[in-house]
């Protein structure tokens, strides 16, 4: 979903750049609280994994492909603030070293693929976690649900930006239908990759998974209660 230069006009790109800068500033503050001895080692891994996996476009039919965005994956593994920082580093490297995503569109790409997927992915993860049984085995499915919906929501956010500052006058309804349609399919791939990545780390070291902490804390309390 990397937006190139030229799809959105200059004022819109300046505005998304400002929103991205504010988002990163908030994330820098929040990440200082998240980055403890368990989160810090995983941050590098999450960023490299997202970067590497984004190179692998998977087919979704009709001559179209998609790749992981990674918001839910990063937020659940290292926390939403650190997760956004990891993704932002990925988008900057992609833009400057690999010409993937426009330079004036860097703020747009950080907003759509970073901020939107992290916020939506993390919020849906927390809601799903509250509904599902409080077990470590439920962390990966909850992350997958956040991942599944974060992609079509990000595509809808692009349509919103296009409505404000799109370069070519086209039917917004048709654009929204097409974007949400194809990105719902890409969301299934996003959910699958997120499930596997979060599930494998949660299986061996649940204590390293940021999103598993409430479940682990509760389990410890139950065990302490039973011991009395």
């Amino acid at each position, binding site marked *: 979903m990397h937006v190139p230069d030229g799809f959105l006009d200059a004022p819109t790109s300046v505005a998304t750049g400002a929103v991205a800068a504010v988002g990163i500033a908030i994330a820098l503050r929040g990440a200082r609280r998240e980055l403890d001895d368990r989160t810090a080692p995983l941050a590098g891994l999450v960023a490299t994994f997202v970067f590497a996996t984004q190179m692998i476009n998977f087919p979704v039919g009709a001559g179209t492909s998609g790749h992981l965005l990674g918001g839910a994956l990063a937020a659940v593994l290292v926390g939403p603030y650190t997760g956004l920082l990891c993704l932002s580093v990925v988008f900057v490297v992609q833009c400057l070293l690999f010409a993937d995503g426009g330079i004036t569109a860097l703020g747009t790409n950080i907003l759509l693929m970073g901020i939107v997927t992290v916020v939506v992915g993390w919020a849906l993860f927390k809601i799903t976690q509250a509904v599902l049984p409080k077990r470590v085995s439920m962390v990966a499915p909850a992350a997958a649900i956040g991942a599944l919906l974060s992609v079509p929501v990000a595509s809808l956010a692009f349509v919103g930006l296009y409505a404000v500052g799109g370069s070519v006058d086209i039917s917004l309804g*048709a654009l929204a239908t097409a974007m949400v349609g194809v990105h719902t399919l890409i969301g299934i791939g996003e959910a699958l990759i997120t499930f596997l990545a979060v599930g494998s780390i949660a299986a061996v070291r649940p204590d390293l998974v940021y999103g598993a902490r409430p479940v682990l804390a509760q389990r410890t309390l139950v065990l302490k209660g039973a011991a009395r």
Partner: protein
Amino acid sequence: MTKVSTRWLVVAGIAVALLVAGIGSRYASGDPDGLTKVSQDHGFASAGTSHDGPFAYGGWSGVVGVVAVLAIVLVLVLFLRRRRSSDEA
């Protein structure tokens, strides 16, 4: 149950990322991605312009990208943790 060490897990994970970047990327779909395809179908693809980057995805370039991302994040984490500990002191 023997606990997998954090170091082992991170090293194994980064090895997977390097394999994906160096080898897996050869098998990536060459079809346009969702946004590119929609922009072609809906007549705004031509509005997009591209710039040149020093690297292309796949093979050793992909590995260079992985190393660059890892290095930047490690420096960032180190910096933020130093700020955190000086705040608490």
